């Protein structure tokens, strides 16, 4: 057992970890951030995607100790108390959410994509979410949502005002 500190969604957090713990277990079991999902446990499906130091990672493939001192963003850190992030809003408006299990990872992959490339082409969007599997939507509505979200973010993030 070892105690580590890290920043999660802008807050200093500390947790007791053991050597076999993955970042995914740390987030879900220790910090109770269950929005991060486990779909395969082997880095294939992307349901456990979180943002670490500005890059997406599969939190099932990162050991908890590797997150020491790191800045992590999970799906719980995307919306403010009374307002959805524009990406989340676009996902709802475009009907990109069905069963929802891939959605936290999709939203976070979309965030990193749009942080790095504010006006992506549809092909670039597909590339950006290529690490995230969705079994319900067939992806087109997710691509639509990310395109729409790019528009929202480029016009100040709130076209709905």
């Amino acid at each position, binding site marked *: 057992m070892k105690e580590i500190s890290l920043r999660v969604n802008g807050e200093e957090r500390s947790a007791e970890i053991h050597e076999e713990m993955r970042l995914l277990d740390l987030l879900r079991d220790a910090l109770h951030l*269950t929005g991060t999902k*486990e779909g395969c446990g082997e880095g294939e499906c992307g349901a456990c995607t979180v943002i670490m130091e500005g890059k997406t990672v599969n939190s099932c493939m990162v050991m908890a100790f590797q997150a020491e001192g790191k800045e992590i963003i*999970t799906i719980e850190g995307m919306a403010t108390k009374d307002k*959805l992030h524009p990406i989340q809003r676009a996902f709802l408006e475009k009907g990109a959410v*069905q069963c*929802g*299990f891939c959605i936290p990872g999709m939203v976070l992959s979309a965030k990193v994509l749009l942080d790095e490339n504010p006006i992506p082409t*549809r092909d670039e969007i597909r590339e950006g979410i290529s690490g995230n*599997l969705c*079994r319900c939507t067939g992806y087109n509505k997710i691509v639509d949502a990310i395109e729409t979200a790019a528009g929202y973010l480029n016009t100040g993030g709130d076209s709905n005002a």
Partner: protein
Amino acid sequence: MLKQVGKAEIRVDGPAKVTGRASYPQDLYMAGMLYGKTLRSSKPHAEITIDTTEAEGLKGVIKILTFKDVPHNHYGVLFKDHEVFCSKKVRSIGDPIAFVIATSEKIAHMAIEKIKIDYRELPGVFDAIEAMQSDAPKIHDKGNLIYHYKLRRGNVESAFDRAAAVAENTYRTSMVDHAFLQPEAGLAYLEGSQVVVCVATQYPHFDRQEISEALALPLDRIKVINPAVGGAFGGREDITLQIHLALAAILIGRPVKAVYSREESFAAHSKRHPMVMTYKTAADAEGKLIAMEASIVGDTGAYASWAINVIRKAGVHATGPYVIPNVKVDSYVVYTNNPFAGAMRGFGATQVPIAHEQQMDILAEKLRLDPIEFRLKNCFKPGDRTATGQLLHHSVPLVECIDKVSEWMNQNTGADGGAIE
């Protein structure tokens, strides 16, 4: 009334799902909860004896459930041919044998490794056609052929005699997994006199009935809660961990949770039926279909699940959307030692187009007809009757659909022309 019709509404569960607040069964935690893990068969067909002594001695193991703990050790949506835990023999890889309840997932996993299963292997059968032979190994006590659907219309033999073109071929489809993104998980606990089972399912009312029957408890002692469901596609129409969890919570009196790995998920739930489809289809010189004979064999693996309904539906849809005056269809459900098959998107109607559409292309070529024209000439239109006798008096927009697809295919342009991304 009809306030939402015609409008794009935000789905009610959407906000919880985009923010990560939606709870799937693996997201439920309770104080003092225990963890359950299933031991599954590693052999496709074998007699077994189970020794849990060493595993039970492991620190942190609370109890190991086997068939001895189940009042009525069976379940199944149409036939009660699954055992909650295998008692004397296993019929496919992945069959549940025991359920370890421990203070942590890690200990449960270690205990699984220490359960000794003596497998005395039996000859297996993995091909549906072989399984139909009289000398094939029997999966259950009765024979392997468990259902035969017959469809007869007109006289195929005389129609084949006067055909201008006949195509006769056999098509095979493979097993498919739903691979819904949320692996099976559940939490069961006691609440007053009730046992509560939280599980992602397509049929909470059926699950409740199955739990009630297996545990010999009245329905009002069982509550099934369906939290967020992470995809299903037919793969959550059968019992997986519901009875195990309910039994564990009842016998121990503490909350018990189980989460399947992706690998276990593949082993635990149904598959799409692989089918062997032998088709003989005939048309006259004008390009009108005149006869079709089909034999469809569905491999349901070790358990029937929804096979009867699935294979009946395959038989009903065997002609495809075409008017054929003389039809003879036989579809069969057969047990094998393969993973069991059940419901999956299309429910038997998905496999047959592989066969009937290939037949259409082959016949069009033989008749030197354009394959689209050949389809337009034969496809259902309002007023037609299907092979099963249904009069199609409502909307049948197939001609419009084929026309549109043909137009887009021939335009060969980008997204605006309708090309699929």
